């Protein structure tokens, strides 16, 4: 019995370790398909639509990368991951990249051996409560029962916040957003805490959204971004610059609709370099000339993606805030394409 348990462990760990070869870019090209780890279901960021196709703000990055590398934004296989399974899925090689509202932290970067390539959403942790409770500040939540998703940074922030304010709470640890929502709606917890954007997304899917408020306190910094395995720098660059191409496109006014027109008429040297009309930026990463053009054409520039998936005109209704371009008072800033 002892032996068989040991054997099982080793077999499991051997499978877990997988066979992550050096070049993810080559693997993806050879496979003809990008495997992207996404959220199990967070409306607006990454969730299957009515016909079962994944859509959302994070999913758009998968599409942009697939378009840049494989020439077709549809050549993506989406692997739903929970807060608990996401990093194991990435480091074991089960997915090529993770685009799943994951917070960039020091220990994840160094200890978990991940590389966060960029920040696609600057977020912070918030609290949602039922309006009837009459709570107007998170500091009034002394003694409350709080639903919290396990395996997240929010779990640790929550403990820190209550400790710093010298108040107490009862945690209810749940596995994913939908379970948290069920427990919260059933009244099993007074408050649900996660990234403010996640709260807005969850609230949008509630039947009685107007009865729930998101408290004003933002208790942490949650820079969310796509992640790849540590050590494969070339692949990290591909994902990073595919994302920055979207940000730069917004800055330069290139949209899904006018991209062909811009490519034909532009005089801006940086746009020319980015769209492959001049120089050979794509080849430096192991891609062709048109990589950025296809990435932008996949679902539009950063601003378009934001507006279409989580922006103010959608049911989620998030303002650009910190995620506006640096030219408009935000933090989104693409390094130069040179």
């Amino acid at each position, binding site marked *: 019995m002892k032996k068989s348990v040991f054997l099982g462990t080793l077999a499991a760990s051997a499978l877990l370790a997988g066979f992550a070869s050096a070049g993810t870019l080559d693997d993806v090209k050879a496979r003809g398909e990008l495997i992207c780890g996404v959220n199990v279901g967070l409306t607006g960021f990454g969730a299957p639509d009515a016909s079962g196709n994944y859509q959302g703000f994070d999913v758009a990055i998968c599409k942009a990368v697939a378009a840049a590398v494989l020439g077709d934004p549809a050549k993506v296989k989406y692997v739903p991951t929970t807060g608990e399974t996401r990093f194991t899925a990435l480091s074991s090689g089960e997915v090529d990249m993770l685009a799943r509202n994951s917070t960039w932290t020091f220990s994840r970067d160094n200890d978990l051996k991940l590389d966060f390539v960029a920040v696609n959403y600057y977020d912070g942790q918030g609290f949602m409560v039922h309006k009837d409770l009459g709570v107007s500040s998170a500091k009034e939540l002394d003694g409350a029962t709080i639903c919290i998703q396990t395996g997240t940074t929010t779990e640790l922030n929550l403990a820190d916040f209550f400790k710093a304010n010298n108040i107490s709470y009862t945690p209810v640890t749940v596995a994913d957003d939908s379970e948290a929502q069920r427990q919260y709606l*059933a009244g099993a917890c007074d408050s649900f805490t996660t990234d403010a954007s996640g709260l807005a997304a969850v609230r949008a899917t509630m039947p009685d959204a107007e009865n729930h408020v998101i408290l004003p306190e933002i208790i942490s910094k949650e820079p969310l971004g796509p992640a790849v395995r540590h050590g494969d720098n070339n692949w990290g660059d591909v994902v990073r610059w595919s994302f920055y191409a979207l940000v730069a496109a917004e800055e330069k006014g290139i949209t899904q609709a006018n991209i062909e027109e811009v490519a034909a008429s532009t005089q801006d040297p940086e746009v020319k370099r980015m769209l492959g009309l001049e120089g050979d930026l794509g080849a430096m990463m192991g891609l062709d000339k048109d990589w950025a053009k296809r990435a932008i054409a996949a679902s539009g520039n950063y601003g378009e993606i934001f507006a279409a998936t989580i922006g103010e005109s959608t049911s989620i209704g998030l303002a650009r805030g910190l995620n506006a371009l640096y030219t408009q008072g935000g933090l989104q800033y693409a390094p130069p394409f040179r």
Partner: protein
Amino acid sequence: MAYVASTPKEPFRLSMLVYDTRYRSYTIQIVVLLLFLAFLAWLLNNTVENLAAKDKDINFSFLFQRAGYDIDQQLIPYTNDSTHGRALFVGLLNTLIVAFFGCILATLIGVFAGVLRLSHNWVVSRLMTVYVETFRNVPLLLWIILAFVVFSETAPAPRDFRVTEEMAAAGEEPAASKILFDSVAFTNRGASIPRPYLDHSLGSFSVLDVPINLSVVAALALIAVGVWINRRLVVHARSVQEATGVRPTIWWKSLLILFGPIIVFLYALGFHLEYPELRGFNFQGGINVAHSFTALLIALSLYTGAFIAEAVRAGILAISKGQTEAAYALGLRPGRTMRLVVLPQALRVIVPPLISQYLNLTKNTTLGMAISYLDLKGTLGGITLNQTGRELESMLLMMAIYLVLSLIISSGMNVYNTAMKLKER
């Protein structure tokens, strides 16, 4: 007989390893063993190489780092400043407490249902059949989730218990109220039960940061002494009965010995109960038993109880009908026949399958993760694993702990089995 001894002694040749039946079995066993060891070595090597490729090592030092997360149900003091190692123990204790009460409850339910299933009363025996078949044939996880959802969706929210000033002025009753003489609050989060308190506690001391309450120790000691004296009394009564044929009346002495000292002790220390009260969002004071615990306990006990019922039924059926008839002939009533004649013998058949049911129940506590019960799987195998990223270490440690736990339970039960089994002389 000389010709037998004169059989020529063949010199050993290498081919005999394959063609000679005397050696062949050894050859096969050694080859299989070598192959098995090579397979193990390959797995080990593969693990080490892949870890090295990912620049990871095997390191258990995370157990001594600050955990940083909170746990709802804690039997020993724990805060988010405690270490991951302590979180492991909190989780382990949560596992053990469910397993402990689960085994007791499942045994009670199982024996009860198993005996009743053989009842001559048609309704009773069919009801037990329905119980056994439904619980045995539906996955345990579904029962756990069902129990949890029933509790959390049907019970009132804590705020339904609140009486606002307007309501008091209008003479209205709140939507929900406490049960059992206003002492237990059953909300959609858990049950708040009264907590025993002593005015003059004997104090406490700590062993490895685990506080040990001297009052509780003293109370337990008093009970143990009472039980021991009572047993002496019963033995004495029996010897008197055997010697004279008259059994002395001892029931009031037993009651006095068993309960007298502990009542006096508690009274002297100022025993009272602290009732839960609604303050803020939740009931404060009292002991809060979360529904995740109750639901897990009930589902595990009912599910395992169905299997134990079958083992009990098999055990009883294995006892020859002659035993029952002989007992009836001696004038024993059916209840006593079952208790004094049939069940003690049936135990010999029941105990071995019972061991494996106890092991199953203990291991099945890991399913508590589905309803947010933070047992060992929830702390070490869930949050700690995730926050530290030490999958291999956490999994190995967890498997080792469950293995040790199972081995302890089965060796304990084996000792009991040896004591119970038929003494052949």
